[in-house]
């Protein structure tokens, strides 16, 4: 079991993905994926102050759905 926990804790680095199921978004699927949401501004360290990019931020809408993925880790 400890090997599995190690795999999960280092999921982004050591994972060996055998198969995945990616979310399907097509013309018939009205659900908007998170990837289609307009990009947000990133704040510089001197930030905390909105600049002209605030208009982009103001257009951000709450995303529509939870995205689910499945992974299989080889032992």
């Amino acid at each position, binding site marked *: 079991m400890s090997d*599995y926990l190690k*795999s*999960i*804790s280092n*999921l*982004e680095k050591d994972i060996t993905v*055998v198969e995945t*199921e990616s*979310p399907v978004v097509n013309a018939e699927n*009205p*659900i908007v994926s*998170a990837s289609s*949401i307009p990009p*947000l501004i*990133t*704040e510089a*360290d*001197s*930030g*905390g*102050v*909105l600049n002209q990019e*605030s208009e982009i*931020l*103001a257009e*951000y*809408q*709450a*995303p*529509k*759905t*939870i*995205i*689910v*993925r*499945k*992974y*299989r*880790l*080889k*032992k």
Partner: protein
Amino acid sequence: MPTCSKAVIPKNSQPIMQGDIYKNVKYSYIDSEDDAGVNVVEFEFPLAVIISQACDAIAMETIITEQKGKPTKFMPSILLCPIYDKTISKKGEHLIDVFSKLNLVLEKEEVYHSDDYKVAQRDWHYRFHALDVVIDDKEVINNAIIDFKHYFTVPMSYLVKHKEDRLFHLDDLFAEQLSLKFATFISRVAIPN
């Protein structure tokens, strides 16, 4: 009209704390295993807010970043609640992918009714929190709802690693409002039929 929660864009150097709103938060768990491998399910919540107390989160972040700390400060994971679009979540459509991938049949039901939302707008609902967020009088999140029932946790190491996904920090008053409402939700006593 729901309470407009005021927020700021935090500096990267500011600690992770209660009221921080992250995007694309991944929560995963081991679904099953066999001799050959382990099956993992990952939920990606497009938006989520930290509910854990600020002092606890700050202390655990320090442990993670400094790689040392006292046992009294250790926390295995940080509590968050997801933020959903009000309109989509009303009919449960925000869970379509969840039910599909988990091979569950999604029975049609209104997750909440119009009256529920009106109550949530008055900050009186036990489960839902209507959320509008403004920064410097500019609305940055609207038409959103927090579902306290969908709470989940992630390790602080995840939040530290994905600090660039932190969007806003709710002012302390509004962050504490959420934690108090969550406490009310989790402590309710529901009598089964």
